[in-house]
């Protein structure tokens, strides 16, 4: 053993330094990228791609046959479900932190159930509720149905976020509030919750983004055309034309909603990091 190590440095070619090695790996990566791009350019028929994904006449049709209405519906479904979920989620979070054990159990069961079940099933179930219970009507149908169904699912996720936010507020804050003579409910409302929501604004905005995309599940409810959201709207026109252009446009519309929100979250997180 000892002899080989002594000889090793002399006999074998010198090992590359880590810096040289990293440089060489980078060069290989650039080479692979170049090859892929060249292959793509040589093999893909640009005109066909354009006619499948961006057909000009279909763009016109899509834009003029109710896209604004579908975009508005997506926003309405999402926003309503978010408000519903936030309210119920706050309630669930407070129940999870309650001194009363059964409240904690109920909230835990609710949260585990709705986080474990696909949102699609919940939507389907709510769609069938009015069939199963004749006479049962959600207000503002179908908006009420969607808000309740999607809101109940997102409430389960938000409850955990809100609970974490409440727990992240230092204990001294409650003590200072109680020392001023505030009852515990007032201390929660005036001191803890405002700080908790400030802490969880970024994750809640992420939840809003997820909810925007989840609103596409609404297609499983048999909706009338005026209640179509982006996905259902794009899919219908795509189906009847055998072309993907309307779906691509619907997809871009989602980006119009989600990208600014993503940008907002990133800015809030950067600001929070700086404040710390």
């Amino acid at each position, binding site marked *: 053993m000892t002899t080989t190590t002594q000889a090793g440095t002399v006999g074998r070619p010198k090992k590359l330094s880590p810096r040289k090695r990293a440089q060489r790996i980078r060069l290989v990566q650039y080479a692979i990228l170049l090859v892929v791009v060249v292959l793509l350019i040589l093999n893909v028929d640009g005109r066909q791609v354009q006619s499948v994904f961006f057909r000009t006449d279909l763009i016109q049709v899509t834009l003029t046959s109710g896209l604004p209405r579908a975009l508005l519906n997506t926003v309405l479904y999402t926003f309503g479900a978010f408000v519903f979920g936030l309210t119920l989620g706050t309630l669930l979070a407070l129940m999870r932190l309650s001194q009363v054990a059964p409240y904690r159990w109920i909230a835990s069961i609710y949260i585990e159930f709705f986080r474990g079940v696909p949102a699609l099933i919940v939507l389907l179930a709510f769609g069938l509720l009015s069939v199963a219970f004749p006479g049962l009507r959600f207000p503002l149908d179908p908006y009420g149905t969607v808000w309740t169904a999607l809101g109940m699912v997102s409430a389960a996720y938000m409850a955990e976020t809100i609970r974490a936010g409440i727990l992240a507020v230092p204990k*001294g804050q409650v*003590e200072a509030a109680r*020392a*001023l003579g505030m009852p515990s409910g007032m201390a929660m409302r005036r*001191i803890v919750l*405002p*700080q908790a929501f400030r802490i969880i604004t970024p994750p809640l905005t992420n939840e809003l983004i997820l909810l925007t995309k989840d609103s596409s599940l609404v297609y499983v409810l048999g909706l009338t055309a005026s209640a179509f959201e982006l996905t259902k709207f794009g899919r219908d026109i795509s189906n009847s034309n055998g072309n993907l252009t309307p779906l691509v446009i619907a997809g871009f519309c989602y980006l119009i909603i989600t990208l600014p929100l993503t940008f907002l979250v990133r800015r809030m997180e950067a600001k929070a990091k700086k404040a710390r």
Partner: protein
Amino acid sequence: MTAMTIPAQIPTGDRADEIQVYDLHKSFGDVEVLKGISLTVRTGEVVCVIGPSGSGKSTLLRCVNMLEEPTAGRIFIINEEITDPDADVDAIRTMMGMVFQSFNLFPHLTVLQNCTIGPTAVKKVPKAEAEATALKYLDEVGLKHRADAFPAQLSGGQQQRVAIARALTMNVEMVLFDEPTSALDPELVGDVLDVMRRLAEIGMTMMVVTHEMAFAREVADRVIFMDGGVIVEEGHPDQVIGNPQHERTRTFLNRVLHPTHVHTGEEDAAYAARHAAELGSGPEASGELPDPALRTDNPGRSRL
């Protein structure tokens, strides 16, 4: 000198006996932190509670306004029993302010709002009136010009002075201070102590848990030395700090007043004996600390 004798009548009924504590016990799980504390703080009195960490002095203070619930014992605030299960604890708390080691200002509110939220939300004082009071006290602690700032924009010393103003805007009868300068950079301690000194001068009743011996000696009317959950020694600061009667008091003061002084010898031996079980094989096994009993270089300890 040690635990006071419990009066025949509880509470005394004397309006000037603002804080009365009788045979207070507090346990956290199996650990008994307070082992029967009795004391009275009278109107206008400044009582400083000193003692080593873990002696229970902060717990005592937090029991007085029920931030910690006592295991046993009774506490009266101006002859109202705060430990009574039927007591309106929130109402009694409005009579006493509390200043925390870590300030605990509300970060989502401005300095002014920090000072007005108590009066407006709890006492239903009109906003304009509460703001006028708040500005008056902010002026007294020298921070009126920062009324619209947020706590994060202030230094630690400024935050603590706002915290004092916040306590005062409730028009309290007494203020509890829980190590108010322990979290501050040394150069900021003076400003806070100045505010507290002025507060003492105008006759505020104050109970102060502190490590600032010079402040205690100068400002306190009475010093209480606690160790191991009991009051070991109590009396005028010149007596307790200047001429302590108990060995434990002397040892503590020595360590606080001469922190750079290296204590070895019999104190280490005593420590090792007390903690023999936890130390296990003990310092001998580590081979770094020589057996204290064998040391001959035990420096003579200075007297105060």
